[in-house]
């Protein structure tokens, strides 16, 4: 899966949790889940569960703590998929 395809999948996953639609329209690798998309911090665990389901991977606690931006999420997903 290319980086761009991963972004598209991730966009679909985070969409229901997004509280700032404008930031969502302009989503890039630099986008932060909480500060930009205004996702409720409690919902981050739900985003991660949805990522696990979508890519059939398991995200451990250490990886989860880092998954605060699109870039971090993509890096973690890529590394899990390749391992």
């Amino acid at each position, binding site marked *: 899966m290319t980086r761009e395809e991963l972004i598209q999948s991730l966009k679909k996953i985070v969409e*229901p*949790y997004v509280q700032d639609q404008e930031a969502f329209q302009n989503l890039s690798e630099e986008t932060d889940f909480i500060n930009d998309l205004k996702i409720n911090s409690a919902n981050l665990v739900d985003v991660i569960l949805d990522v696990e389901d979508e890519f059939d991977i398991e995200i451990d606690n250490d990886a989860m703590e880092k998954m605060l931006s699109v870039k971090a999420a993509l890096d973690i997903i890529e590394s899990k998929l390749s391992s």
Partner: protein
Amino acid sequence: MEPRVVITGMGVVAPNATDLTSFLKAIRNGESGIEFHQNLKDLNFSCCIGGIPDISEEHKRRYFSDLELRGFDSSGILYGVIAGMDAWNDAGLSSANDEVDYDTGMVFGTGTSGVDKFRDAVYKLDEGKVKRLGSTAVIQTMASGVTAYLGGKLGLGNQVTTNSSACTTGTEALLMGFDRIKSGKATRMLVGSCSDHGPYIWGGFDAMRVMTYKHNDSPEAASRPMSETASGFVPGSGAGALVLETLESALNRGATIYAEVLGGNVNSGGQRKGGTMTAPNSEAVQRCISDALKEAGVTPKQIDAINGHLTATTKDPVEIENWTKALQRKGDDFPYINSLKSHVGHCLAAAGSIECVATVLQLKHQFLFPNRNCEDVHPEISKQINPNQIVTESKSLSLSHIAKASFGFGDVNGCIIFKSYNS
């Protein structure tokens, strides 16, 4: 001087109607909300009937965002939020701003919360999948879940809490809100209660054999308060909500006033003198009613009607006896009496608040709703009161004071005196 407290808004989600206007029509017409439920039969319940409010997906979406509905499985919170927001809007109050209303609080009770959600969580936990609970398990299963949802939607900044006292819950919630306003700590309180539906909330009662198993083929005839053939209660669910506020506040904002809360009382029989975990101490019940009258400053003679607890078990004649003793009125002199449980069953933690809404509607619209299924009055009741005082057909009349009582497991009691309001 202590402020007077009036009711300026109401909302209800009941087995026979899911908004206030249809509820008024339903209770006037004596419409039953009790139906047969195949899932109860499949699970080997003795009582396979119950009262479940009919809420469509579209209805839900008017109160909850798509995000809130992801993984949402708490029927009590669903009913509570709908009833609470309806009461708020009915009172002409708005919630569409970023301000916190520090003068308004909430007491909204429940028995347990999100029992279906909890069941799902337990299965996941036992499979070792604790992470799969996500963020939604806690907020839907904590007892105060309903107040947490409502408080956020309405921006309430005074005390926001959940009470729990079994089948007295809703009646107690109203009195707790009333006390908070009386003490000057709040101007306005949203009060009410809710209860989940379904096998996981009703199962324990089925096991106790306190629900009727004789009417699985005649659901609408099953809930028979004060009838000789009453054979146990029918389980229900839903929510009722009322906005209480000072008379001054209500008048200042030109709100519709449904009725006045004169006062009331909650107590416990201490599980002594005949009282047990599941049966009331009659002395305490009578005392609760007498003290409610005292606090309200009314005499027993002033009570025009009673909205009873009257669950349709064999204990109904004992409740009547307690009323006759507390009011020192019997025979022809006994007030009119009815029980909403004949329409909607016993809505457990939601019963008190739904029945308070029905009681207040009676005062506002000057009528008494019919008690269904009481064509054969229990002889132990007709010995004590003239059976004509049991309202069996919708009746228009002039009403000033109605007493509403609820009694619950743990030997707890609550009684409220409502008065019609005339400007």
